[in-house]
């Protein structure tokens, strides 16, 4: 999944997806430094990418279980200013084959 960051918005390429291993990239299109954290619905932060420079690209690999997550920029008050994105992770669909 690709998340574009700009002052002060995060824009994700997906709103939902299956549980499992995810690679999340952050492209910083803005002028400030930005970061990407992933927070579970219970408030626990399960991953942080680290600072990404302006025009830079960051990446983080994380295992996501079904649930709702908030992707956010952890720099200063950027999250409060609007830099967050909600991601819903669902149980993957199981393919059934006809007997």
């Amino acid at each position, binding site marked *: *999944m*690709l998340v*574009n960051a700009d002052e002060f918005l995060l824009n994700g*390429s*997906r709103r939902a997806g299956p549980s499992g291993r995810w690679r999340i*990239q952050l*492209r910083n*299109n803005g002028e400030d430094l930005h970061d990407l954290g992933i927070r579970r619905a219970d408030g626990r932060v399960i991953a942080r990418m680290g600072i990404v420079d302006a025009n830079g*690209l960051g990446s983080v690999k994380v295992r996501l279980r079904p649930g709702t997550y908030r992707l956010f920029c952890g720099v200063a008050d950027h999250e409060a200013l609007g830099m967050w994105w909600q991601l819903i992770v669902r149980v993957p669909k199981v393919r059934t084959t006809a007997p």
Partner: protein
Amino acid sequence: MSTTIARPPTRIARARVERLMWRAGFGAVPGDVDRLARAGMDVAVHELLFPRGPQLRKAPEPTVDGQPIDPVNVYGHDVLWWLDRMVRGRHQLVERMTLNWHDHFATSNEKVSDARLMQQQYFTIRSRSVGSFRKLAQAILRDHAMQRFLDLDNSDKDDPNENFAREFLELFTLGVNNGYTEQDIREAARALTGFTFNYDAKAFGYDSERHDDGVKKILGKTGRFTPNDVVNLAINHPKHAPYLCKKLWGYFTPRPCPPGTLKKMVAAYKTSGTQIRPVLQIILTHPALLADLGEPDQVKPPVVYVAGMLRKTNQVVTTDSWTWMLDNMGQRPFYPPNVSGWEQDEAWLTTASVRARYEAASQAVRAMEIKDGTIAKKQTPAQALSAALRMTGKPWTSAQSRAALSRYARTSVADKTADWQEEHYWPERLRVLCHMLLAGPDAQVS
């Protein structure tokens, strides 16, 4: 019973087709130059203007590390996706015009931040790239990537945003300071109000309550104009047709457009109801396009250079290196530097961008897999050059370059007699010859 053997096309016929296919497309795939050179230029131009059949050639889909690309969810794959369309595209003029219109209606994902919207814009443009300019401009007005890029979304009657109105008159239809005033821009901005974008729902729309339905005066006409009216007023303006035709001419040749030809193009454009195809027909059959075949004068834009290199060497997209290489060369599709698009011709060649072009050729040669120990020592210099030409799609080469390449083919292995040297230097000769054919001065121009 007699058998007719087709004569090989003459060198000049091949050179003409090569020039045409580089200017109107992304270079010919192996075999097409000879076929079209035999068929004649009329057939070649007709095939470009009226393509038939599937949009893409039968060739493997693009991959990175053996996996299918994901243009929406992985950084840089959007560029690979478009590059692949150029490489495998069969409707070459349509693809090339899509790129030209992307330069004309420049929109950058740097601001749009949504590869899906950019892909939609690609298809919006592609399906109208050689048809009616009026319809293309109307579609661009409603294109969501464009609306985001030039702040047309959420431009409200209480606070009309002038960005789209300004660029629409200045760059898209009339040209800088060419028949409009600041007041026209302000009034056009009022007429363009009403488009909406809900960020949370990512939903675009139009709200007549937010549209300024008052009387406006735009380009000398007065009325309660709507967004579509702005498109029509600009396109009906007498300065529009010459501006657009001249700009189209510039995409195909750096030579100045002769006044008589411009008149002819303008007449064709107007009488056809703003159709682009008749204008392109005049350009593609104009002698200026084929002038001085021995001294090409148009620098290939980076993405044309790369797509053409892959086409000529029968390769497809298999690495994401192309994204940063194109960036280093100065042209990343979906990311024009500003609303004016890319600077063309000599601006493409800087010390850094030429180096990036050399690296791109190295990447293409690596993919040819000419491994050590695979070339027999008995290969003559002439055979080596002939093999390199074949492997690089027989590109046009000047007499001077051919002489230099022949000299290199003769001298490079002359003193390499040991077995270990044979293992390495014979393939190395072929690799270098391929590289010089793909990256040398002749390869940078068309």
